């Protein structure tokens, strides 16, 4: 197999509040011999909020980000579920509506760019499990996650809406996603099945409805804990921020201690590949990750 190569759209979070996500992504890409070209030109995707204010602006900015992957002739990979959603949704709308595409291109032309629709967009998770394959990853495991019981938390925007996930991304079943569970097993760990693995963490209403957000996260986290998980792993930095940095608020909302280490997906892979936890940014976590 020729070397896998992608254009990496980091999103804002990985460059600000979850530096450990970018660090661990780059570390495992190197270990797995995947080449990632950073899209430093890219802007914010609007995080599923900008399009509530100005749909056209959101479309143009997301199209511009995709253009930079197209210029490299590469598939764009994302490391944030919400970046994945906004980018893939933009692509789907432009590719299925020539008038809309013309409108967006009339704007992009002003800065010398053109959206063609030639690049695929997928979350890095699916570059790992679909393009590289869990077997290939399993072969590189030097430090199997033996005896570790891990609950996969998939995050909404990688699994819903399913019609979009089928066009761009992993095409997982929204009710029974399996990719992360398969990856946990391939890394030598024990995947914990729990009902809330495909539910919402509430991050997007954190400011205006903290009670809603805390109750959603808390319910999912307690479900994982009560099902025997020693850690939760997520492919989304927004779920991670909510569940890692807010455990005190979540605990007081739920009236019960909600304490569990939250890992980014590439951190879990990196641990099994024998990468030093410091190089995976474990020191950036707010909640305790001591057992790791």
């Amino acid at each position, binding site marked *: 197999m020729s070397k896998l190569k992608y254009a990496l759209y980091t999103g*804002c*979070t990985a*460059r*600000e*509040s979850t*530096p450990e996500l970018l660090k661990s992504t780059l570390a495992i890409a190197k270990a797995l011999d995947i080449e990632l070209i950073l899209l*430093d*030109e*890219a*802007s*914010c995707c*609007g*995080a*599923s*909020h*900008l*399009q*509530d*204010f*100005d*749909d*056209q*602006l959101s479309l*143009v*900015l997301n199209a*511009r980000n995709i253009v930079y992957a197209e210029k490299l002739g590469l598939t764009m990979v994302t490391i944030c579920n919400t970046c994945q959603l906004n980018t893939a949704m933009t692509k789907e709308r432009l590719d299925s509506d020539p008038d809309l595409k013309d409108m967006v291109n009339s*704007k*992009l032309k*002003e*800065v010398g760019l053109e959206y063609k629709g030639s690049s695929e967009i997928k979350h890095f998770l699916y570059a790992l499990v679909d393009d590289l394959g869990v077997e290939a990853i399993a072969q590189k495991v030097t430090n199997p996650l033996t005896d570790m019981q891990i609950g996969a938390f998939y995050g*909404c*925007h990688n699994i*819903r*809406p399913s019609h979009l996930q089928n066009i761009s991304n992993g095409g997982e*079943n*929204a*009710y*029974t996603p399996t990719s992360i569970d398969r990856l946990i097993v391939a890394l030598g760990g024990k995947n914990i099945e729990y*009902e809330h693995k495909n*539910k*919402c963490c*509430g991050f*997007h*209403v954190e*400011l*205006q*409805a903290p*009670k*809603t*957000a805390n*109750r*959603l996260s808390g*319910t999912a986290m307690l479900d994982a804990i009560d099902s025997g998980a020693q850690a939760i792993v997520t492919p989304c930095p927004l779920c991670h921020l909510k569940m890692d*940095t*807010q455990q*005190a*608020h979540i605990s007081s909302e739920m009236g019960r201690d909600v304490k569990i280490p939250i890992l980014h997906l590439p951190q879990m892979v990196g641990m099994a590949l024998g990468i030093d936890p410091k190089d995976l940014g474990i*020191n*950036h976590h*707010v909640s305790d990750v001591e057992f790791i």
Partner: protein
Amino acid sequence: MANIETKKMKFKVFRFNSERDYLPYYKSYELEVRSEEMILDVLNRIKWEHDGSFSYRRSCRHGICGSCAVKVNGKATLACKDRVSDLVEIFGEELVIEPQDKSLAIKDMVIDKKSFWKKYNSVNPYLNSDIDETPTKENLVLPDDADKIDEADYCIQCGNCYYSCPAVNVNEDYLGPAALAIAYRFNSDVRDSGREERLDTVNRLGSGIWDCVKCFECAEACPKELNPIEKITKLHLQTFEDGVADDNVAVRHAYGFKPSIIKHGLLDEGELVKYSEGIPGVLKHMPVAFKMWRKGKVVMPWKMPKSKNLDEIQKLVEISSTAKFNEEN
């Protein structure tokens, strides 16, 4: 055409009679199921062949009346539209049939939908218009205008989106996707004059559009594929279009991305929280912000990363913006 196969299957079914039972229980029924049978066929056969007291709502059997919605393994299902074989493909052969919301069960699959209807009716889900009793010409709706209503008109009030919505589940005031989608449907009807009042209702913090958690469960649950969350997005846009968006934390949070993108290309997370919350709202975030800062999770303003070719982004914002909020006016 696929071969029709017959298979012996066990269905675990939620049973409860609120007049008699202290707690609900599950009962298993074994049936020979043909691969083309619907969940509604299973419900019918449980009633006809096993227990005549088994209760569920049903009427049209054509995906129009919205009566027979239930959950199968937690998935919102219109019983007359979803095949047993399709569900087996997703969940395997152990199927569990439950009402849309177990806590609202009256008898077996029959639930009390009062809160759903109350919220649905609160948005005036009908055409608000002065009727000319002696019209001299037709009340025309041109194709382009009809397109704006989109699929929002297809709602059959089955409640699948509502009972799959996690925000409804934890916030009893939230109107939920069905009420918001129908509000959009009439708000975008050129004959309607109730838009202002409806926007005033759906715009309220704590119960309206700003409390949607953006999980897309409603899009997945809707048997008519009307994509309720997309209609919620369009209601957000209407509040800005009509200039009725309030100056509150949620609205500033949606707008706040724009100034940040102009300045950095990327989102300045700290600045967004500060701007959205205002002073003193931002103070309550300080304990968490401090913990994050200690762990290297807070980028100081003077260290904010910037997108390459920022001038392109700034130019695109200048020529592509269509919406306005308070301070831009």
